[in-house]
């Protein structure tokens, strides 16, 4: 390992999160590049408070002394050495990044919202108990601290409840502390304390926007929904809920410069050695959505579409033929996917068990999902998951529509692999109820828990195993 940086700071890929685990404060640093995790106590974290790339070691010692946390300079040296050995330090400051307003032609892009969907939130706080990062803007954090100053004592000092989203420099969004995996501002009854104290408008934008997803495909901004909360699936077919975006907003520009809109790349991997333009993808997704059968079996549809893409790319006739005659995947074809999923799920259990508290829902969920994934390795259980009509067919069909409409299949994987991955997720969700405790809120819609753990806790990484599609 090379010498310590002259003016150290936490690198941008270091994600520092405050946790209260069974009443004990823990600081967890996630390495966004490797998925590794490093833990330290609040005092060690306080020693690092000045490490923003502007101070050399002596100045860091002085900053720690000013903060009242210095005993030995060597302790600071040891913390820095551990971070450096883990590849989590950078040298000097990071240039500040200003929010970039969309270009004029992007601002005019029309919004294309998932038809027929409004969200009815049950205010149970399920989604506020599961994610590793709940982000606030500096203003939103100040508002929360002002409304509820007693929470973790953050009214007095921001750092008691917030850490920078990236690295250690607080010049962007902030991640709120989690108490046994729950947002620190979530009240005991599952309601948002900020909402209760200051109204819905006082909540962070990310919480108000959740679970909407916004993807600009060059023609329109597809507005869809992440199927990560049971409320989403419970809302399907209901009327009178909240629209996914302000009904007055017609264009991307109307969403505001701070709206998190993902822009699709010009070229999109479809299958091995096959690329397509985003215009071709947009047309294909419209075609497929229009041709989805009302009562289709979604695992078969996904797998058959993937095979069509492998053979013919985004050829419309091939995809329509696949939708017209979907075939259930063969167990042998599923086998490597399920093995990779089970291995990843076991690894997530091991990681969660090392530091998460017993009441932490993500830790509990990692156990349930690992058990369900393991069960699918049994031929009889897999056959059962594949056989007949799914008890969650309505959820699955909505999920497929939301994924297609929102371009949510586009990400780390080629589209064909993403389709197979989603089929595997559905099988996992079908197997999950047997592992869930009686009365658990995930029981009516287990797919939402699968999806939240896939994105929020790294389970989705299973599909990047080399033999699959990654």
């Amino acid at each position: 390992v090379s010498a310590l940086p002259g003016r150290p700071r936490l690198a941008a890929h270091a994600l520092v999160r405050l946790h209260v685990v069974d009443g004990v404060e823990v600081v967890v640093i996630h390495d966004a590049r490797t998925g590794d995790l490093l833990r330290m106590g609040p005092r060690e974290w306080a020693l690092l408070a000045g490490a923003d790339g502007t101070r050399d070691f002596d100045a860091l010692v002085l900053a720690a002394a000013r903060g009242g946390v210095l005993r030995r300079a060597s302790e600071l040296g040891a913390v820095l050495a551990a971070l450096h050995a883990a590849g989590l330090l950078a040298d000097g400051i990071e240039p500040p990044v200003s929010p970039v307003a969309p270009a004029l032609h992007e601002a005019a892009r029309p919004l294309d919202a998932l038809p027929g969907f409004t969200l009815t939130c049950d205010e149970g706080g399920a989604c506020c108990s599961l994610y590793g990062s709940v982000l606030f803007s500096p203003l939103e954090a100040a508002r929360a601290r002002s409304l509820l100053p007693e929470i973790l004592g953050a009214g007095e000092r921001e750092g008691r409840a917030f850490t920078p989203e990236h690295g250690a420099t607080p010049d962007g969004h902030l991640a709120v502390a989690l108490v046994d995996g729950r947002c620190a501002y979530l009240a005991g009854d599952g309601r948002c304390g900020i909402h209760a104290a200051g109204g819905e408008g006082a909540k962070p934008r990310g919480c108000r926007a959740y679970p909407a997803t916004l993807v600009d495909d060059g023609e329109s901004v597809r507005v869809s929904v992440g199927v990560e909360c049971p409320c989403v699936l419970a809302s399907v077919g209901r009327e009178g809920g909240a629209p996914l975006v302000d009904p007055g907003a017609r264009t991307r520009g109307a969403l505001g410069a701070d709206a998190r809109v993902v822009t699709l790349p010009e070229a999109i991997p479809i299958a091995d050695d096959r690329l397509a333009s985003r215009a071709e993808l947009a047309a294909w997704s419209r075609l497929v959505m229009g041709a989805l059968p009302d009562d289709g079996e979604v695992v078969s549809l996904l797998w058959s579409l993937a095979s069509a893409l492998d053979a013919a790319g985004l050829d419309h006739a091939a995809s329509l033929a696949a939708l017209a005659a979907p075939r259930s995947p063969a167990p042998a074809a599923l086998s490597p996917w399920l093995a990779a999923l089970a291995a990843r799920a076991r690894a997530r259990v091991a990681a969660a068990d090392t530091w998460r508290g017993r009441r932490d829902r993500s830790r509990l969920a990692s156990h349930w999902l690992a058990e369900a994934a393991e069960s699918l390795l049994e031929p009889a259980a897999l056959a059962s998951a594949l056989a007949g009509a799914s008890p969650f067919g309505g959820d699955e069909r909505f999920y497929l529509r939301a994924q297609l409409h929102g371009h949510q299949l586009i990400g780390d994987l080629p589209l064909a692999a993403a389709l197979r991955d989603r089929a595997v997720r559905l099988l996992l969700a079908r197997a999950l109820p047997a592992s869930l405790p009686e009365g658990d809120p995930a029981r009516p819609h287990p797919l939402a828990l699968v999806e939240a753990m896939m994105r929020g806790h790294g389970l989705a990484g299973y599909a990047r195993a080399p033999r699959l599609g990654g």
Partner: protein
Amino acid sequence: MVRIVLPDATPRDTLDDAAADLGLALVNIVSKTEAHPAQLIYVTPDRRAQVHLVDEGAGGALCYVVQGDEVEEARWSGALRARFEVAS
């Protein structure tokens, strides 16, 4: 001003522990220049005296220099001597 010479090669951790235990607050770190030696500068909890930990470098000594009024200098030099079991 009272000067207290410390044993040779007193480890930095020992010096840091002494400062922490005595409640001395570190307020500055001064690098060695041609004009002055390297030093750590502390203030006492009531800020009525300053303690400089001076590393005089090659040929010189590692020493504390206590500055304050007569009472404070006597008090803090006594505390430091007792801590390091040195006579002068």
